[in-house]
């Protein structure tokens, strides 16, 4: 019996909790991507760098706060700095729209042109961020590191396996839940939110109904900027901040958005968790888990890992390909063409 409990704790600690956290991170990122796709109808490759920008501003503000001995321990100080990051990122998104995207939107350019423009912006931001904060690794979290410490857990329960929950993980999940509820309330219960859904659904009819397209676009960028800043900062809090880190995240984020159905916010969240849990569970080494559950003579020799962790990127890609082959509209039927 104890072995089964240990096995369960092992899976919770090394698979479920990290998967849940990663799922939240991807969901937040995918929400930003799917919003832009639904309203502005193009794939925004600059979203990763937007997240990086938001994180960078939050970190700079955090440094200022720390230099002035402001602290909200046991919570990390960066949470206090986050509003500054959000504000700056929103301004950035609005500026990018005004100076780059709006031109193509007015001319009804092909979506792939907007994609290329977003790549140009990605380059530009990447360079600017490295220029501003340098390429080094930055630790973002201060304050209490763990909500539940593995050692304390083991002492309390007497089990061999410990369950550790980092503060950053707890914060990520809580913030994601709050944001998702807030976003859905906005989209489904407010006039502005409904007007955005209407605009995404049928642009011509929305215009006919008197919905102001410029206002809808502005709200979309505000929401996306906020989501990007929060997602980027939380990701940096959970791991650490390095300007390079966000480009590789683009693929799982887009995979999550497409799997869930591009343009559908519910899909972005579902997709985020599908991708996250798939990635973690397929690259997980099940040896110890199996060892707890089977008699000693059956214990596996190798790591029992389906795919090595180097191939994490392959997991999201293969899932993406499968979805494209079988059901391109995604789980929740977003837009395809």
């Amino acid at each position: 019996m104890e072995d089964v409990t240990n096995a369960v704790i092992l899976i919770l600690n090394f698979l479920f909790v990290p998967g849940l956290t990663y799922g939240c991170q991807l969901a937040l990122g995918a929400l930003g991507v799917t919003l832009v796709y639904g309203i502005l109808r193009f794939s925004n490759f600059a979203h990763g760098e937007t997240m990086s920008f938001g994180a960078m501003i939050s970190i700079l503000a955090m440094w200022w706060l720390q230099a002035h001995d402001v602290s909200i321990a046991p919570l990390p100080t960066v949470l206090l700095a986050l509003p500054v990051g959000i504000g700056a990122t929103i301004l950035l998104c609005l500026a990018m729209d005004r100076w780059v995207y709006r031109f193509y939107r007015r001319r009804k350019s092909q979506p792939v042109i907007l994609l290329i423009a977003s790549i140009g912006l990605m380059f530009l931001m990447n360079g600017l961020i490295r220029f501003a904060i340098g390429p080094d690794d930055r630790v973002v979290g201060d304050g209490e590191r763990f909500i539940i410490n593995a050692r304390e857990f083991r002492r309390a329960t007497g089990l061999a396996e410990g369950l550790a929950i980092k503060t950053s993980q707890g914060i990520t999940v809580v913030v994601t839940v709050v944001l998702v509820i807030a976003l859905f309330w906005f989209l489904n219960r407010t006039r502005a939110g409904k007007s955005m859904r209407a605009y995404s659904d049928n642009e011509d009819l929305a215009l006919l109904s008197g919905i102001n397209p410029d206002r809808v676009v502005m709200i979309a960028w505000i929401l996306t900027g906020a989501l990007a800043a929060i997602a980027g900062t939380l990701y940096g809090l959970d791991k650490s901040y390095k300007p390079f880190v966000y480009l590789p995240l683009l693929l799982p984020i887009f995979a999550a958005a497409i799997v869930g159905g591009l343009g559908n916010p519910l899909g972005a969240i579902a997709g985020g968790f599908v991708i996250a849990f798939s990635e973690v569970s397929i690259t997980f080494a099940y040896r110890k888990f199996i060892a707890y559950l089977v008699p000693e003579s059956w214990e596996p020799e190798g790591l029992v890992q389906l795919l090595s962790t180097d191939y994490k990127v392959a997991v999201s890609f293969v899932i993406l390909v499968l979805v494209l082959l079988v059901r391109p509209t995604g789980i929740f039927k977003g837009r395809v063409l």
Partner: protein
Amino acid sequence: MSFLTGEGMTGGYGGADILHDCTIAVEKGEIAVVVGPNGAGKSTAMKALFGMLDLREGQVALDGEDISGLTPQARVRKGMGFVPQTSNVFTSMTVEENLEMGAFIRDDPIAETMDQVFALFPVLAEKRAQPAGELSGGQRQQVAVGRALMTQPQVLMLDEPTAGVSPIVMDELFDRIIEIARTGITILIVEQNARQALSIADKGYVLVQGRNRFTDTGAALLANPEVRKSFLGG
């Protein structure tokens, strides 16, 4: 003085002209119908009245006021309602939300108007929480019309409302349109199903190649042997 007039309308979508000196006038509280063969410019004439087309010549007036320069949204504010032929509902939104969006430009409470629409289309009241995309063709048309009614328009324009629906649904739709007209709303319909449409029309316009060909009451046009031969199949 007609309530809604489009006089001497000449224009097109940018290249060649589609309308040539076309005139359409609707009296207050009347049902006017525009029929004609394919490519006659019926929908184009309606779009011109609504402001979705730039007219080279001619003007449009509503209740004596010249609205030729107004955008479609501004014309909606003046009291015009338009039901497009296709893509005329928000498929991913519920029936109720569609009606809400229809009333988007209004600041005042819309509950009463919504109740009126539900009274007119009881089926919609039943399905108010269902996404419009899941409804049948005829029900969707009802949502589309209901959506346009939410601004409490004085003039309601419908572009081929019975396109692609079964005959029974078509009858029901025309019944509803008559009911709407009874509440005092002026109605302009463009239709392919000429016979049915003319039978409920106070005034009928037959357009051919963008020009007025026959203009008379609905009944008179139905009785006219030339009209019957050319457009009503004898």
